[in-house]
């Protein structure tokens, strides 16, 4: 019956065309059950379209996909029984209160009136929304809305949860709350497919990542694999004395096991680093060897850098977003 029970999502050569745009253009995917899987890519890369196909909201124009063993076209209803979707724009009713939204969805999932109320208030407690339960959703902040949205997706614990850009536009505190929620859902066994434009988010949450560009998967692997191919950060060092540049260069290269580039000004050095934990040690070694450092910086590669490294071209989406987090 089920050819790959260990796979939550299995897609081959998925195609979706809107007018002249090939939004999804030959997408292949194999998402293992019980993992958090990240779709990383810029706006317009086809992430949302792919999710909408997998959540049975769109029919593909080509290729095929099985979700939890069921064909998304022929067995859409079986898929719908097992998945939940939290869309990019709040998938809750703005005019209704938080409580009413959850009760309505619980009723739609088949709970009796009494059970629906009980389930709704359980979820409001669990997601720390009880204080705002009686307010219309249109008065909610972005973070509250997202939490309600995810709560609404867990009325019946889904086997597979689609989260489309769950933290876009959230402040850091709300973002961390969403991350915690996603982790606890995943710990309990729900497979999560999330899309994000942020490398750090994929890094924090996802076991495996597919980098999507122009409707195709251009790179796929665990976060560690992906980092190795890109380097997890870039180190920039400026020395005080230009005569020490070549010595510093070889030391850094040994310590970081990375290719180090010398800037033409004779004092600057740049390296892509795959093991950030070695950076402080390398810098300590430099100063122990009496190499005087003027300043240094270490940052994670931005999405632009990942893209550049993986695709050989810069991000072409409408907004090339990058969030550089210092370590």
């Amino acid at each position, binding site marked *: 019956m089920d050819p790959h029970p260990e796979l939550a999502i299995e897609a081959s050569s998925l195609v979706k065309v*809107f007018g002249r745009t090939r939004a999804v253009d030959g997408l292949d995917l194999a998402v293992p059950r019980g993992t958090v899987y990240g779709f990383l890519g810029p706006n317009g890369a086809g992430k949302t379209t792919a999710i*909408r196909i997998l*959540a*049975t*909201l*769109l*029919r593909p124009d080509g290729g095929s996909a099985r979700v939890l063993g069921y064909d998304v076209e022929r067995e859409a*209803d079986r898929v*719908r*029984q097992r*998945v*939940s*979707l939290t*869309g*990019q*724009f*709040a*998938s*809750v*009713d*703005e*005019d*209704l*209160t938080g409580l*009413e939204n959850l009760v*309505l*969805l619980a*009723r*739609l*999932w*088949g*709970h*009796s009136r009494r*059970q629906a109320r009980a*389930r709704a208030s*359980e*979820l409001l*407690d*669990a*997601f720390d929304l009880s204080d705002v339960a009686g307010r*219309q959703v249109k008065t909610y902040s972005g973070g509250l809305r997202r939490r309600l949205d995810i709560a*609404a997706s*867990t009325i*019946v*614990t889904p086997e597979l949860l689609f989260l489309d850009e769950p933290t876009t536009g959230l402040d850091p505190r709300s973002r961390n709350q969403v991350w915690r*929620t996603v982790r*606890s*859902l995943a*710990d*309990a*066994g*729900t497979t999560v497919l999330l899309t994000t434009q942020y490398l750090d988010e994929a890094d924090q949450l996802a076991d495996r990542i597919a980098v999507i560009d122009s409707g195709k998967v251009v790179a796929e692997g665990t976060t560690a694999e992906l980092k190795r191919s890109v380097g997890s950060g870039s180190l920039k060092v400026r020395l005080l004395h230009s005569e020490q540049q070549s010595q510093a260069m070889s030391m850094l290269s040994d310590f970081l096991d990375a290719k180090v580039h010398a800037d033409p000004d004779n004092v600057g050095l740049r390296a892509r680093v795959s093991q950030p934990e070695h950076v402080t040690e390398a810098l300590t070694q430099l100063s122990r060897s009496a190499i005087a450092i003027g300043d240094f910086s270490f940052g994670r590669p931005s999405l632009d850098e990942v893209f550049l490294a993986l695709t050989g071209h810069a991000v072409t989406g409408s907004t090339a977003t990058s969030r550089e987090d210092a370590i």
Partner: protein
Amino acid sequence: MTTPSKSGLETTIGPTFDSAPSSYIRPPQPNALSVVLAFGWRAVLKIKHVPEQLGDVIGIPIMFTLLFTYLFGGALAGSTENYLQYLLPGSLVMGVMMVTIYSGVTLNTDLSTGVFDRFRSLPIWRPAPIVGALLGDGGRYLAASGIVIGLGMLLGFRPGGGVVGVLSAVGLVLAFSFGLTWVWTTLALILRTPNAVMNLGMLVLFPLTFASNVFVDPNTTPGWLQSFIDINPVTDLVTAVRHAMQGTVSTGEVSGVLVTSAVLVAIFAPLTIRLYATKS
């Protein structure tokens, strides 16, 4: 951690996550009726939270009834009171028909919100969100009917058919409106903006309602218009409603209205549902 099922119908589901409650049971799949009722409840909640959307239900029938009674009454029938006996059933039809357009406008607005994505990803009878919304709209049509008739009675309208006559007249209007609404839901799924639905709706409704026997006996109209009025289903509806109010409606008139409504539903309900199912 698992919870024991309480009955044979309910099955336990495996893990729950730590911040979620442990007493978690997967409910049985709901039937279409209870899902439709849940969406009907949503429509009622919407009215509760956004009472402004009742503006059309209250405003249009009052405006039409007052305007046409006092504008045409003296000229057409000698007195407003005389004219009201003729006009009110027509004004009831026209008022409620105008209100039906808002069902399409509301649906079009609703479809553009993210919550419809969620509805469409649920394992429920697909057309339920639309059918449930129409259920709520049925309540709006009923309210609009009540306002027209109540106002008419205040102004001196005296239906000869009594309570039964009035109720059957309202029943006919609701039956016709239910058919007509599916035309607007179809438009709501084809057109891009609520405004476009409104504009096209008005463009269809104006000739349909004015070129009928709503306001005057069409005997004096030129032949070409007369032939349109004769085939216009609104004419048959108004005649049936008028006769129902007087207590003289015939079975043929009633079934004529019901057949028209059934034809509209037969054409436009599947079209709406198909468009909704394939909407991207």
